[in-house]
């Protein structure tokens, strides 16, 4: 009696373990399916209301804009529910590929480096992949030096500062670029992100392009130089720079607050991190065939960080919307299409600028992006 009871108990425990293990392996399945449309007759006209439910996930940089778009979009389309989960770009891409979400937001385009581009194309079959920029934001170089109102930095100097090669603010190399500015003898403390982030990836990409002789590290979302001050998240970097006199960091320009923002040399002029200057660079950049892989509706840029044009700010973060041209149901596709169209529309971009200080897409780029989004059926 007693031994058979123990047997039963252990059998139950075994079932529990296996059950838990099974849960660990499988992802939560599609939540992106659209619910039955209540009003079928409304379809057809582009301005018709859409309904149903879609979920997206990804970039935290986009999160504030996504929240603002969702609120307005749901206001205009009573039957529609859109959700966006800021799990991070990598997580968003992974969820999109595994069919757990209908769309994703990512700070870096899908690439072949980890096979993600191919997998995403496969996920969209028999339709096609859609990837378009929807969020452009300047990354400011913020510094904390009381009394120094304006700081000019050449790309090489910037790279040396973040590579810990220039250690004091009154270094001749910095003084040379800032004549007439009283630079203190304070130690320079470069502040970087301690978490993996698209901001870091874009910033290190910039440094490696403009100062290849100084910045020999690999481009990555994880900060490559050891020994600096590290803080988590944009707010953490801003907090650390604000707390320490002599600190310098990089962060989304809209979050810089009271901190000084350095002017960066572009060509022969000094550029400041304004939304307009940030948006302009995509018009000067070429699309990257390797990132587009022959897909008609993928718009991915090789950002021209080395541009010498005036009025352009090259340290930017470009985040993209990722979706498919075909979904399981026409309703779901219509909803994704309507939502994407709203996000990239001038109203959507203006809202995004208001919500997170992003730079609106230029007129030229908007046309291209509209064509790509228009391919969703």
């Amino acid at each position, binding site marked *: 009696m007693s031994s058979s009871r123990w047997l039963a108990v252990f059998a139950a425990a075994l079932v529990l*373990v296996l059950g*838990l*293990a099974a849960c660990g392996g499988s992802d939560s399945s599609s939540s992106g399916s659209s619910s039955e449309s209540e009003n079928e007759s409304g379809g057809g006209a582009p301005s018709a209301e859409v309904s149903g439910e879609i979920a997206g996930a990804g970039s935290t940089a986009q999160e504030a804009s996504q929240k603002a778009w969702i609120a307005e979009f749901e206001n205009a389309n009573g039957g529609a529910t859109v959700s966006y989960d800021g799990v991070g770009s990598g997580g968003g891409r992974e969820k999109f590929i595994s069919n757990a979400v209908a769309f994703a937001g990512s700070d870096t385009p899908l690439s072949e480096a980890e096979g*993600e581009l191919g997998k995403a194309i496969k996920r969209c079959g028999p339709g096609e992949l859609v990837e378009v920029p929807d969020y452009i934001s300047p990354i400011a170089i913020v510094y904390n030096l009381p009394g120094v109102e304006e700081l000019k930095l050449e790309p090489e100097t910037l790279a040396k500062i973040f590579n810990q090669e220039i250690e004091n603010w009154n270094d001749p190399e910095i003084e040379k670029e800032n004549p007439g500015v009283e630079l203190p003898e304070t130690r320079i403390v470069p502040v970087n992100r*301690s*978490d993996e982030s*698209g901001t870091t990836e874009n910033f290190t990409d910039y440094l490696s392009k403009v100062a290849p002789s100084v910045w020999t590290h690999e481009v990555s979302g994880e900060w490559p130089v*050891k*020994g600096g*001050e590290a803080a988590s998240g944009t707010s953490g970097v801003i907090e650390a720079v604000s707390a320490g006199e002599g600190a310098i960091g990089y962060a989304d320009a809209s979050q810089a607050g009271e901190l000084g923002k350095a002017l960066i040399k572009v060509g022969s002029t000094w550029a400041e991190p304004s939304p307009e200057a940030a948006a302009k660079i995509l018009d000067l950049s070429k699309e990257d065939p390797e990132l587009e892989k022959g897909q008609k509706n993928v718009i991915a840029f090789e950002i021209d960080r080395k541009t010498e044009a005036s009025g352009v700010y090259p340290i930017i973060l470009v985040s993209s919307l990722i979706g498919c041209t075909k979904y399981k149901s026409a309703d779901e596709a219509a909803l994704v299409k309507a939502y994407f169209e709203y996000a990239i529309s001038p109203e959507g971009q203006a809202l995004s600028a208001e919500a997170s200080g992003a730079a609106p897409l230029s007129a030229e780029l908007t046309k291209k992006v509209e064509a790509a989004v228009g391919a969703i059926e």
Partner: protein
Amino acid sequence: MSSVDTTTNAGQILAAASGGRRRRGDRIFSNAAVVAAVTILALLAGVAVFLVTEGFPALTASSAELPKGESFLSYVAPLAFGTCLAGVLAMIIAVPLAIAVALFITHIAPARIALTLGFFVDLLAAIPSIIYGLWGIFVLGPAAVPAMKWLEAKLGWIPIFEGPASITGRTMLVVGLVLAVMILPIVSAVAREAFAQTPRKLQEGAQALGATRWETIRTTVLPFGKSSVISGAMLGLGRALGETMAVAIILSVSGGVTFNLIGQANPSTIAANIALNFPESSGLAINLLIATGLVLFVITLATNFIARLIIARSQPQ
């Protein structure tokens, strides 16, 4: 043995008296207790199975395949070091303090003050770790900057205070202090319970032999509570090793192994590293993070095992 027999007999007598009703209650209770105990084991096994299966791809991958291009061991070693350093630092600060607080509450303070103080110490455990983290970066960190500059100037010859002192206060020393505050209530609650149970006869005996209050505590209370203090400290250490949010928020992690507690470059901890890098990771990078979680699991298991061993050895027979 004999006590089991008597309870069974008593149970049978009672069962006979109430016509089998009580017997069913007994069975339900004992089954429920067994199920609860086995569930705990099953959960633990489930976590272990998850860590091993999900971490396996990273454990078996060559260093070239791993996202950082370095072997798993060289990736996890500085993290394990940082985890242990933070945990040990927190213990060094918290355990003596917790013992002192527990002794004050049980043997020195008047009853009313003891009750209030005990209540407030317990309250520390109810504060969420993210609040500790924010308090660390906004209050304790900046406040510790002058102190750390002083340590660098006066005690800089000791490697742990080598400096240069951080200008923001996000250092291992501050993390150790915050973790110490976090584990203080756990350690002191366990110690308090044990100290309060010291047999009066022992204490009175010591006093009758002419012992002062300190001597009484040293010869009776401390030895009596020793094993409980150790197990309380291990509970606290477990919490400190696994603490995630507070460390992730406060610590300026720049990798590398260093004993310098007041600099801007600190080794990260396993849990904080997972929290910081998981959101942007995909593919093998996630497996790598989970594999580091497995290492943390093993470290925690090992410390608990060693603690049990120490307790078993120090048990008065």
